[in-house]
Structure formats: structure tokens, C-alpha cells
């Protein structure tokens, strides 16, 4: 019995222990969960007391030093793109609000608000974008709402920033005035839109022009240093740690001439600004001897004529298209070089302007009617830009072996995209025998400028080859890479190909000169320098959307409208070519026609006339018989004796007056230039009422 009772007690005790253990386990588990939750809460919402926050900061900080991006310079060193920081200005409107509220200092709060109103007046006067009341409303309203990041102004430069820092409230520093500056480096283009497509830009994924292609030179290398805080709370370089200095980017000196670019831009705008049918225009000016591009203008409007002209796209490099009659020069050069045309006066039968399989040329009918002749010279065919003449010449000369003609085209580098300083030069399309686009009329159409698509840069390069007597230079835009004014990499002119003999080039130049004298470009006849060149008018192939459904005519839409391209390409002075010039204009869909002999030729004339006045090479000279007054060196004022007339002969007016007046004498003068005579003579004394008289010439 007692044993049974003992066993029973033991079991009862064990159960009680189990229960206690169970509840204790629950308790500790719950405690663990609570601790865990508490820990997570502390970690998630951890907010260090502002009074001790500095204790958690490292005593040294890494400071990254950004390099200054290199400049893009014009050929004479004038900057076309430079880097400078701009500032976005914000304001913490709540600055000192809590402090005044804690102290109950209503008067201080009122004073702050009064200064904010004065600040508003200053901001309004400086930026002129909002009234003083608007600024005051924004700042004081922001203070009431608790705005800590109110935008004041974006993209403020250093000079304006210095002014803003002297404004009421802001002059008290950022802790009291609440001004927040956010600095960002920006590219500044001093000439606004001038050559912007050539210069280009680098912005995130958008990278175009020289900025993109020479980014590796312009960018530079970042540096860093470690800084520590001093006892006086200013940050200084930590001398115990390593320093890597930032290396600024190199400068790029281009071949562009700002004056040429300015003149070309203005001349093109003048021609196309008033005409709403013109969508875009291009000017390329290239130095004949080197291929250096002195100007490249790419002006275009947006989708509608109402949009302003701007450098939107680099059409000179990307606008692949049939160039029209300017390509007749390609045919003429090949024919003369191969000996099929022995003389420009050589004649061919007119055949009423008709050649089998080709469209009849009405210019020939006009010619026959006017002259009564049944033959036409190659020269005259070129002058009037006859399609028939060039079809006839190509078919009769190359009809049995067209490959020879296309070999010429490839040797003129008109069949490929050559290497250029800006990426994106489009590849031409040439339909040579055996290709998909070849037909029995391709030879003739190519000979007069259709059936082959090239870019304006290709055309200008080809004409430059003729101007340079057969040596076709590779066009280039970058002359050198420089570091602190010292050239570290020089790019020299290079030859793309020798395209023809000197005699052939001279013969073709004579034909091009004749186009200006008596042909389709007579608007250039009176230009101040003789120009040799060729006009071209081409219809642009329309897209399927522009043509409309079911319309098989590639050049007209359903309403009969077309897109035109008018061009003039040539060089000047014709006697000794120095520059090659190309001007092209492109129209919207229009019922009107645009010819190379009108707007483009007028633009060329404007440009040639202005370049003539600009370039000292074509100056008139004064012979040695002219006399120039002898100038005298010396420091003005050193030879003056009070009351005595000083010797001022040979001096400019400013220096002469300074000397005479330093001697305390009255003076009068006539003429301009330098003092050639003076009265009374130097060294004499002036009588009562007399004055020193100077004659300047």
C-alpha cells in the first residue's frame, strides 16, 4: 500500500515538474520572440540622436575629385565647347523655425520673415522670372508648410551665384539663410547653335559628334584623396593616406573656322528662312589642299515649317540620296580620263534628245529649236545639264563594259563610307552590274546623277579632288589633341586616292567654270572670286507612307507633290582653288520645284563674297610709294617739363594729349592717326592765351 502511495506521489511530482517546465519553455520562447521583434524594431527604425551623430561618423572621408572635361577649340583656338559648373539653387524654408519656436522668440521670427521679403525682391530683380510677391509667397508659404527643398532657380552660373550669396538672408550663410546649392558640371557652347551637330554632346546614352568620338580624350581621369576634420571643424587632406590627383581631359583642336561657320550659317539661314517649303539645308566648306573641313552647317526644321531652324541632325553625313546633276561631273571626269571625251568642244548628235529606253530630254528640243543645230558639244551639254548628253556618252562609251565606269565611281570613293572623325557617315548605294538594282537603264541614269545614292560629304570630297588637281584628300575635322596648350597628338592631311591626271582636272575645271559663266549657275557670275561648280536638282525618293497606297511613282505622292533637293557644289577661286563648297537645300512635300541654281547658288555667292573680304590672301596692296609716319617708342610722361611744350611727334592722340596735359598746357588737335606736326615746337614755352596745336595723319 505504502509502496503504491509512494509511486503515486512520484508520478504526481513528475507531472507538476513537467507542467512547470512547459510553462517556463513557453515563457522563454515568448521572451525570445519579443527580444527578436524589439531588436528588429530598433534596427529598422534606428535614428541616431543628432547630438551624438558625429561620434558615429568616420574621422576620415574619401573625397572624389572630378576631372575638368577638355575643351573643343576652333582652328584658331577659340573655344567652341567648354565645361563649367552651374548651380541649382534650393531653399530650406524652415531654417531656424524650430529654434525661434522653442525660445518663443516671436520677434526673431518676424525679422526672419521681413528678410525673406527683402530676399524675394532681390531674387525677382535678378532673375526676372517671377514677381517679388510670388517669390515671397513661395518662401513664406513654404515656411508655413515645412518645405525644406524649395526650388529657387536652376542652372545659375558662378557670377550670378556670387550675387545671390550677397542677397538678404542668404548672406547669413546656409545655416541661417537656408540656401542650398547643388553643383553640376555643364557643357557651355559659346556660339549657341553654331556647328552643334559637329561638336555634338554626351548625355547619358545619347552620344553624338566630336564629343562622342573623342570622349576618351576629353573625359580625363577621376582622382581622390582622403580628408580629415581639424580641431576647428574644417576638412583638410589627410597626409597619412594616399592621394590620386585628377587628370583633366585633353583639348581637341578642330579644323573648323568660327568665322567661316558663322558666315555659312548666316548665308544659309538668309536663303531658307523665308521659305516655308524648305525643310533643311547643308553647307560644307573644305580646304582644297588638305581636306580640312572649315565649316559644316546642318540646319533643319522639325516636322512642320513652323519650327525654327536648328542643328537637329547631321545631314551632311547621313542624308544618303540621289544627288542629281552634280554627279554629271563624275561621268565627265571618267569620260575625259579614259579618253572617250578628247575635247570639251567634241560634239555628239542630238537625236531630238531621245536615247532608246530613256526618257526624252526636252532641254535638247529647246536647244535644237533655238540653234537649229543637230549636234551639241559636250561642254554645252554640261552647261545646260542635259541628261541626254550624258546618257549618250555613257552608253556609247561604257555600254559594252559598264564595269569600267563603276570602277571609276569606286575609285572616287563614292561607293563606300570612308573613315571620318565623326561616326555615322552613311554608306552609299551603287547599283553596279550584277547587283539587284541593275537594269538596262542604270548606266545612263547613273551617268546623269540618279540610280546612285551618296551623302553630301562624299560629293564635296569628290569635287575637292578636282579642285586639288586630282589628289582626293580625306576630309577631317580634328587637327590635334592638346594638353595645356601643348600638342600631344597631331593629325595630318591624308590622301584618299589620286582620281585623275592634272590635265583631266584642268579640263573638268574649265567645264565647271563654264557652268557658272554661261550655264545653270549664272547667279554666281558676278561673285568677287571666280567660282567653278555644278548645280544639281534631284527629286527625293518618297517613303511608302508618303507615296500612299497603290502609288508606284517613287517621287510623287497622290496629290502630285514631290520632295526636292537643290545643290551647288564647286570651288573657288577657279584659277587656283583654295576652298571647295557644297550647299544643298531639301524641301518638304511640295508642289514647287527647287533648283540648284537658285537658293544654293545665292547662298554660295554670299559666302564667297564674305570670305573674299575676310581672307587677307585676296587683298589689294599699297605700293611702296606710300609714306607711313615714323612711330616713336618710349614711356609717355617721362619727358615732360612743366610749362614747356613736350615733343609728341609720332605719338597717337591718347599719348600726345597725356603728355601735353601733364605739362599743364591747353591743347587742340585735328585729323586722326599719329601726330605729324605740332605747334609751337617742342621745348618752347606757350604764350598767354595760346594752346598747343596738333595735326594728326
Amino acid at each position, binding site marked *: 500500500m505504502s509502496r503504491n502511495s509512494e509511486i503515486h506521489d512520484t508520478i504526481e511530482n513528475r507531472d507538476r515538474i513537467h507542467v512547470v517546465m512547459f510553462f517556463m519553455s513557453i515563457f522563454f520562447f515568448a521572451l525570445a520572440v519579443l527580444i527578436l521583434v524589439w531588436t528588429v524594431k530598433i534596427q529598422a527604425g534606428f535614428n541616431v540622436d543628432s547630438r551624438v551623430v558625429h561620434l558615429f561618423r568616420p574621422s576620415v572621408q574619401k573625397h572624389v575629385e572630378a576631372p575638368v572635361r577638355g575643351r573643343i577649340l576652333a582652328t584658331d583656338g*577659340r*573655344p567652341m565647347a*567648354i*565645361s*563649367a*559648373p552651374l548651380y541649382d539653387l534650393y531653399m530650406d524654408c524652415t531654417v531656424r523655425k524650430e529654434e525661434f519656436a522653442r525660445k518663443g522668440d516671436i520677434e526673431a521670427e518676424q525679422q526672419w520673415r521681413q528678410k525673406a521679403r527683402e530676399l524675394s525682391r532681390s531674387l525677382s530683380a535678378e532673375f526676372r522670372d517671377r514677381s517679388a510677391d510670388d517669390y515671397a509667397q513661395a518662401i513664406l508659404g513654404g515656411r508655413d508648410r515645412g518645405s525644406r527643398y524649395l526650388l529657387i532657380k536652376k542652372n545659375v*552660373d*558662378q*557670377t550670378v551665384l556670387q550675387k545671390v550669396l550677397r542677397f538678404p538672408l542668404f548672406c547669413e550663410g546656409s545655416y541661417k539663410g537656408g540656401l542650398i546649392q547643388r553643383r553640376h558640371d555643364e557643357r*557651355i557652347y*559659346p*556660339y*549657341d547653335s*553654331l556647328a552643334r551637330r559637329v561638336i555634338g554632346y554626351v548625355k547619358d546614352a545619347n552620344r553624338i559628334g566630336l564629343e562622342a568620338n573623342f570622349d576618351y580624350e576629353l573625359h580625363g581621369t577621376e582622382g581622390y584623396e582622403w580628408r580629415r576634420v*581639424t*580641431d*576647428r571643424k*574644417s*576638412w*583638410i*587632406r589627410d*597626409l597619412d593616406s594616399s592621394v590620386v590627383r585628377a587628370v583633366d581631359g585633353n583639348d581637341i583642336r578642330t579644323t573648323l573656322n*568660327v*568665322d567661316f561657320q*558663322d*558666315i555659312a*550659317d*548666316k548665308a544659309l539661314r538668309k536663303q531658307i528662312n523665308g521659305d516655308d517649303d524648305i525643310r533643311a539645308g547643308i553647307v560644307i566648306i573644305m580646304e582644297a589642299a588638305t581636306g580640312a573641313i572649315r565649316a559644316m552647317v546642318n540646319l533643319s526644321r522639325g516636322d512642320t515649317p513652323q519650327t525654327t531652324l536648328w542643328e537637329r541632325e547631321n545631314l551632311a553625313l547621313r542624308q544618303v540620296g540621289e544627288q542629281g546633276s552634280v554627279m554629271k561631273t563624275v561621268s565627265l571626269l571618267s569620260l575625259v580620263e579614259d579618253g572617250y571625251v578628247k575635247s570639251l568642244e567634241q560634239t555628239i548628235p542630238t537625236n531630238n534628245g531621245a536615247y532608246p529606253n530613256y526618257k526624252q530630254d526636252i532641254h535638247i528640243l529647246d536647244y535644237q529649236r533655238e540653234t537649229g543645230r543637230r549636234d551639241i558639244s559636250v561642254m554645252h551639254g554640261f552647261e545646260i545639264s542635259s541628261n541626254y548628253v550624258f546618257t549618250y556618252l555613257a552608253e556609247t562609251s561604257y555600254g559594252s563594259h559598264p564595269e569600267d565606269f563603276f570602277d571609276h565611281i569606286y575609285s572616287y570613293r563614292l561607293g563606300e563610307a570612308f573613315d571620318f572623325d565623326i561616326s555615322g557617315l552613311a554608306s552609299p548605294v551603287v547599283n553596279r552590274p550584277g547587283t539587284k538594282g541593275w537594269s538596262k537603264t542604270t548606266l545612263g541614269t547613273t551617268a546623269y546623277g540618279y540610280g546612285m545614292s551618296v551623302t553630301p560629304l562624299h560629293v564635296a570630297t569628290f569635287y575637292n579632288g578636282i579642285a586639288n588637281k586630282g589628289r582626293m584628300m580625306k576630309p577631317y575635322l580634328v587637327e590635334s589633341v592638346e594638353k595645356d596648350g601643348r600638342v600631344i597628338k597631331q593629325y595630318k592631311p591624308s590622301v584618299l586616292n589620286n582620281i585623275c591626271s592634272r590635265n583631266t582636272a584642268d579640263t573638268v575645271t574649265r567645264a565647271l567654270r563654264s557652268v557658272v559663266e554661261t550655264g545653270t549657275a549664272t547667279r554666281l557670275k558676278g561673285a568677287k572670286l571666280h567660282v567653278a561648280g555644278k548645280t544639281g536638282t534631284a527629286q527625293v525618293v518618297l517613303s511608302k507612307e508618303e507615296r500612299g497606297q497603290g502609288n508606284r511613282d517613287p517621287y510623287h505622292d497622290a496629290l502630285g507633290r514631290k520632295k526636292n533637293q537643290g545643290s551647288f557644289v564647286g570651288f573657288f577661286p577657279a584659277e587656283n582653288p583654295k576652298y571647295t563648297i557644297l550647299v544643298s537645300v531639301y524641301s518638304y512635300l511640295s508642289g514647287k520645284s527647287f533648283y540648284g541654281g537658285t537658293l544654293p547658288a545665292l547662298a554660295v555667292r554670299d559666302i564667297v*563674297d*564674305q570670305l*573674299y*573680304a*575676310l*581672307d*587677307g*590672301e*585676296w*587683298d*589689294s*596692296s*599699297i*605700293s*611702296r*610709294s*606710300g*609714306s*607711313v609716319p*615714323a612711330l616713336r617708342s618710349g614711356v609717355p610722361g617721362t619727358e615732360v617739363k612743366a610749362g614747356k611744350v613736350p615733343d609728341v611727334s609720332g605719338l597717337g592722340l591718347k599719348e600726345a594729349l597725356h603728355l601735353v596735359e601733364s605739362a599743364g598746357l591747353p591743347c587742340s588737335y585735328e585729323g586722326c592717326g599719329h601726330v605729324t606736326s605740332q605747334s609751337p615746337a617742342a621745348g618752347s614755352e606757350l604764350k598767354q592765351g595760346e594752346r598747343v596745336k596738333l595735326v594728326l595723319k
Partner: protein
Amino acid sequence: MKAATIWNAIKNSLKAIRNGEFLLRIRADKLYMHILYLFLLMWITIFLSLKVDETLTKAGNNRAAIEELEVRHAQKEAALVKLRSASSIQEKLEKMGSATTLPTEPASRIKGRR
């Protein structure tokens, strides 16, 4: 060593400190010059350290000032370059009502001896 001995030594030392006799009791007067020299060295170290900090702060401020001047120079240069372009000059002349235009003939050059 007994604990009582250590306690007595501490007690005596504390009494000596209270009475201002501690340094004399340990015969520190013999080391007086060395102590002064040590303090001088410490003072020089701290002084030089502060001067270095001060110089580096100045150098930092100067660098910031130079950078600011460079920026202002770049911005001024850009503004002046823009004013120098032929079309800007012509526009300004037209606005001012001036009859002066860009030259239509190249400048004459004087050749030969004077």
C-alpha cells in the same frame, strides 16, 4: 609582500600628495629639467600639428578660390567669345542704328620698304 605594507605605502603617498610633498619625496626635483624638456617637446608637437592643420586649411581654401576663379574665367571667356563673333557684332551694330557693316573688301596690305 604583505597587504598591510602595500596599504601603508598607498596611505603615505596619498598623505604626501595632500601635503604637496609627493614630488619631493620621490626626488623628482632631480628630473625637473627633463620634465620641463618633455613638456616643451609636447607643446612644440601640438603647436606644429595645429600649424600644419592651419596651413592645409589655407591651402584647401586657396584651392577652392582658384577653382572658383577658373570657373569664372571660363564663363567670362565663353561670354566674350560669343560677343566677338562677326554676326553678334553686326547684330549689335544694327540694333544701335549704326551704318557700319562687315567689310566688303579685304584689308589692304602695305608692301615694300618704308
